[in-house]
């Protein structure tokens, strides 16, 4: 059956993605840093409310400089944390010690990052320039390479052999040192190679050649639209669309979001109009903009959908819609395939256009905790304008789903009536 073949293909792809150690190390590593990005976001939001009386107050009671610290030490140091977290994750997947791999990766990342001596001649300092989102690609590459090397050397049992007569415990501790030595030497060579190029260091090179072009392509309208449709399609086949797609795109697209957040805190103009955060335009009620469907269910004729609607409305308000996806069901249900793709695509396009022409301000890059209710999360990400957009989005979602839902409801009602007659 054709549908089954397509589903199998999607399932194969998602399984391959989720089983791939490197992709899941990156997304798992970055995911484990969520607490940091959320904390940085929340403090930034508190710190950046643009009401001059409020800002004067913050300066007056002396806490303004404190409130800006979390962002500077989370988002603006993101690559440092990521270098550790991703390496940790990858090593653990190979059943090796993540902590050691993580620290070696962290050291490696710092080795290849510019280190300066201040004017006084003796204080060493690392400029933050490459430690935040701009260094993320390098952090990912270094983490993967160093962790993989670490695992490889341990698994192959390569170690510096001690002459006979040396106590085994010394031999063992040297064995543990071997991966570290190899990695260090390799990283020093890498640093030297890039120092000889016009870029001066690996960050500058990778950022210019890879990160910037990829981010620009990835944050374009067609790319984001494709990403969104893919997410809906994965969910249609019963696969967690957001998880699978995000694990591939977020390392590429996250830095732009973080750059916006840093600018937001500094009170500067946001550098990027469109980032991956813009997928939130369509996320009212969860993937597929299902909130309209749930609202329609509350007023349904059939008992079945009325129950589901009541069950699903609160989670939907918090952006969680598995009950809707599996309970309607939307999975493999041709009745709802069209609205499931059209609704979010429409909302995304609308939000995109409104942002480009300047009616809506660009989203600020803050990471809002999953489960934050609609309208609140909109306000946190884009002010009252985005909240108003969300209201409109709910209405649009409702009308897009309505004709399709009416059909499903009528069928369900008819079945229920028949069942009652039989009884």
């Amino acid at each position, binding site marked *: 059956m054709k549908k089954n073949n397509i589903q199998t293909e999607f*399932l194969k792809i*998602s*399984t391959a993605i*989720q*089983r791939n150690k490197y992709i899941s190390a990156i997304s*798992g590593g970055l*995911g484990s840093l969520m607490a940091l990005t959320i904390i940085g976001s929340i403090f930034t939001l508190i710190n950046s409310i643009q009401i001059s009386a409020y800002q004067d107050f913050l300066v007056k009671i002396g806490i303004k400089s404190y409130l800006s610290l979390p962002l500077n030490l989370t988002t603006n140091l993101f690559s440092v944390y990521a270098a550790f977290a991703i390496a940790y994750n990858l090593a653990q997947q190979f059943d090796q010690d993540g902590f050691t791999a993580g620290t070696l990766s962290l050291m490696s990342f710092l080795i290849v990052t510019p280190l300066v001596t201040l004017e006084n001649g003796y204080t060493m300092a690392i400029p933050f320039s490459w430690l935040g989102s701009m260094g993320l690609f390098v952090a990912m590459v270094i983490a993967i390479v160093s962790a993989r090397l670490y695992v490889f050397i341990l698994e192959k049992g390569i170690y510096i052999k001690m002459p006979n007569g040396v106590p085994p415990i010394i031999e063992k501790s040297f064995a543990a040192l071997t991966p570290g030595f190899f990695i260090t030497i390799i990283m020093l060579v890498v640093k030297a190679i890039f120092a000889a190029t016009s870029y001066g260091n690996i960050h500058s090179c990778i950022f210019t050649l890879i990160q910037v072009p990829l981010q620009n392509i990835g944050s374009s309208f067609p790319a984001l639209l494709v990403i969104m449709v893919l997410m809906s399609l994965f*969910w249609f086949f*019963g*696969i*967690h669309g957001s*998880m699978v797609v995000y694990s591939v795109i977020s390392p590429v697209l996250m830095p732009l979001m973080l750059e916006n957040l840093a600018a937001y805190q500094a009170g500067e103009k946001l550098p990027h109009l469109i980032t991956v955060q813009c997928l939130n335009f369509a996320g009212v009620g969860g993937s597929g903009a299902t909130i309209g469907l749930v609202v329609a269910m509350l007023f349904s004729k059939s008992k079945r959908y009325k*129950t*589901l609607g009541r*069950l699903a409305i609160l*989670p939907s308000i*918090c952006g*969680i819609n*598995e*009950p*809707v*996806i*599996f*309970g*309607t*069901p939307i*999975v493999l249900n041709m009745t709802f395939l069209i609205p499931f793709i059209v609704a979010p695509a429409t909302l995304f396009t609308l939000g995109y256009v409104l942002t480009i022409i300047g009616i809506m301000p660009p989203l600020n890059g803050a990471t809002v905790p*999953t*489960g934050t209710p609609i309208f609140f999360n909109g306000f946190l990400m884009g002010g009252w304008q985005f909240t108003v957009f969300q209201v409109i989005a709910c209405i649009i979602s409702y009308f897009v789903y309505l004709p399709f839902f009416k059909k499903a409801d009528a069928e369900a009602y008819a079945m229920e009536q028949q069942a009652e007659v039989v009884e």
Partner: protein
Amino acid sequence: MVKRILLACAGGYSTSMLVDRMRAVAKVKGLDVIIDATPESSINKLVEQADIIMLGPQLGHAEEGLRKKYGSKLPITTIDMMDYGMMDGEKVLDVALKLLK
């Protein structure tokens, strides 16, 4: 003897709702079960403390891998899509109890 049921889904949110309902049913029926939810990433850590693992339908892809790893030690199953969607705690609990026999 206490039976420990472990549910796993992607983020844990939707599954935790189902868990609440299962616990309510278990209480009414006076069953001796401990039911917990966990995100997929933590399954390996908690598998020692479970008697059965039930996966949310969107984690179907993980079932095969988990069966290979732990299938000999404990039953592993994917929750039926409709039961999950409708958060039918009673049905899911029944499935678990049957597999635990």
